[in-house]
């Protein structure tokens, strides 16, 4: 298959290919978590297509030059989805795929939550929820000051929207009319303690962002046509930041994990993971 030109802004990558990559990423996530014996499968599996669409089809970046000044930035604010980011970065070629099996091990560059000082391609430190959008605002402001055309994408969890800092950052992004900033909410409906609407109801999510003066696009988080279209629309909107609210499923792709808060931060035994991988391949 032809290599994807990541630095080419108007590259064409077929939906079929993005789907195939997504299957591979899900397999990598499960294998690395199984090897690590701990980590967060639910929120890694839910957002695969969103991150694949960005890295493989839309973002301008260069795996051979991770600090390239003109690159688009992807900020994983929901840092517990580290396995997803690592699988994608490795698939792009930021580091060898063989390193995925070192996840969470002593001395590994693949920390339990991402550390940009250790691993190339990681933009922000992850772990505490609610900080990424603020960092995205800072980067988008820097881009404007430097007259750079790079875009900043911030992936947040829906549980993460419980954090007050998210809304502080949302106000700031609207104040500064940061149209080079796109937030993506992985609306999988589940957080660590249970369903988001039981733990801390966040509906109406889309209207909350509208009230904060953001451009809002709602998509099915597994429909590449919709995801790609939303990213394009965000690129064309002026004087407003855009949020893409992506309706997803926690644990997507592994039936016994889907919608289960239990699998927010728990990894099943190796045998069960093997079964899950087989199930993935049947789909």
């Amino acid at each position, binding site marked *: 298959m032809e290599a994807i030109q990541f630095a080419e802004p108007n590259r064409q990558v077929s939906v079929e290919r993005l789907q195939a990559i997504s299957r591979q990423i899900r397999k990598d996530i499960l294998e690395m978590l199984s090897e690590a014996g701990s980590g967060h499968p639910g929120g890694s599996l839910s957002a695969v297509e969103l991150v694949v669409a960005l890295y493989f089809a839309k973002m301008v970046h260069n795996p051979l030059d991770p600090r390239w*000044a003109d690159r688009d*930035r992807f900020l994983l604010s929901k840092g517990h989805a580290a396995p997803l980011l690592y699988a994608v970065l490795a698939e792009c070629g930021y580091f060898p795929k063989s390193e995925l099996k070192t996840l969470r091990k002593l001395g590994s560059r693949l920390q339990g939550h991402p*550390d*940009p*000082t250790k691993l190339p391609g990681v*933009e*922000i*430190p992850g*772990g*505490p929820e*609610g*900080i*990424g*959008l*603020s*960092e*995205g*605002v*800072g*980067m*988008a*402001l*820097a*881009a404007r*000051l*430097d007259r750079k055309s790079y875009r900043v994408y911030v992936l947040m969890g829906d549980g993460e929207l419980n954090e*007050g*800092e998210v809304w*502080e*950052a949302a*106000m*700031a992004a609207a104040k*500064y009319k940061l149209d080079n900033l796109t937030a993506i909410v992985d609306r999988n409906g589940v957080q660590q303690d249970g369903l988001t609407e039981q733990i801390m109801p966040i509906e109406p999510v889309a209207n909350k962002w509208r009230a904060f003066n953001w451009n809002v696009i709602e998509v099915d988080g597994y429909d590449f046509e919709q995801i790609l279209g939303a990213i394009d629309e965000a690129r064309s909107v002026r004087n407003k930041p855009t949020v893409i609210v992506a309706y997803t499923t926690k644990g997507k792709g592994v039936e016994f994990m889907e919608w289960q808060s239990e699998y927010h931060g728990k990894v099943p035994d190796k045998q069960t993971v093997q079964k899950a991988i087989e199930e993935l391949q049947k789909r």
Partner: protein
Amino acid sequence: MSAKPIQTSMRDALGEALVKLGEEIPELVVVGADTSGSLKLSVFGSKFPQRFFNVGIAEQNMVGVAAGLALAGKKVVCGSYAVFMPGRAVDQIRNTIAYCRLDVKLVGSHGGVSVGPDGGSHQALEDIAIMRSIPNMNVVVPADGISTKKLFTQACRSVGPYYVRLARPSSPAVYTEGTELRVGRAEILRDGSDVAIIAVGLMVDKALRAAQSLREAGVSAMVVDSHTVKPLDAETILSAARTTGAVVTAEEHNVFGGVGSAVAELLVKTHPVKMEMVGVNDVFGESGETDELMAKYGLTEKHIFEAAMKMVKQK
């Protein structure tokens, strides 16, 4: 101490330094949180409006935005009152600025009870302890306006995270414009052989006055301005302890976790000596005039004098 000392303002000094630094360092940007007039960050804002961002009353976002700007190659100054920053934003400071050793200078103004009438809610007494315990963080507590300008400027010129703690009131000049100060090097302001007074912030001037009274009482007191609390100038402090055999620390901060603790941690491992800590004794402040509060909470020249006399007698 015959002539009336020149009064200096740490916050005015901060504003002045920022304007100069703004001209010198094109990538310098400043983020404020609705206290930028009070901290004189707005002086920079008027001069460089494109490079100044006021995020409103949102300290966590301020620090997060600062982190993002730094990650994108900017040198960033952000600040507010020390109760709120670090107070409100410790997680953001720890997990972004310090964790990734970002080039952000955090200014916490209104440290200590000298804040005055605003009361205990606005008097930070724990900020040095918090910031000192975070890896990669440098902590600087200037003694007057002149040292604020010099030390803050050096902090800005160097790369990496700094916490610079200021006091609200204007205060007597400890230094002259000609004094050469260096971040990381404690200043011996007065030599002495019986006791060493190691002070920071507004307590440095009071330590100098106490040393004068001690001399009149026949006690030779050394006075050290340990403005860089982290990394501590171990060499100078150790040498002061060896020379005098008795140490008094003085800070406008809780006696738990501040400069007294830092000095004790060093000496207990290297050269244990009799020590007394002048500071706030693990209580919150309250409303009152600066001088009234400094007296009530044990932060005067007299308290330092008495602590020094006690140490000398116990030697």
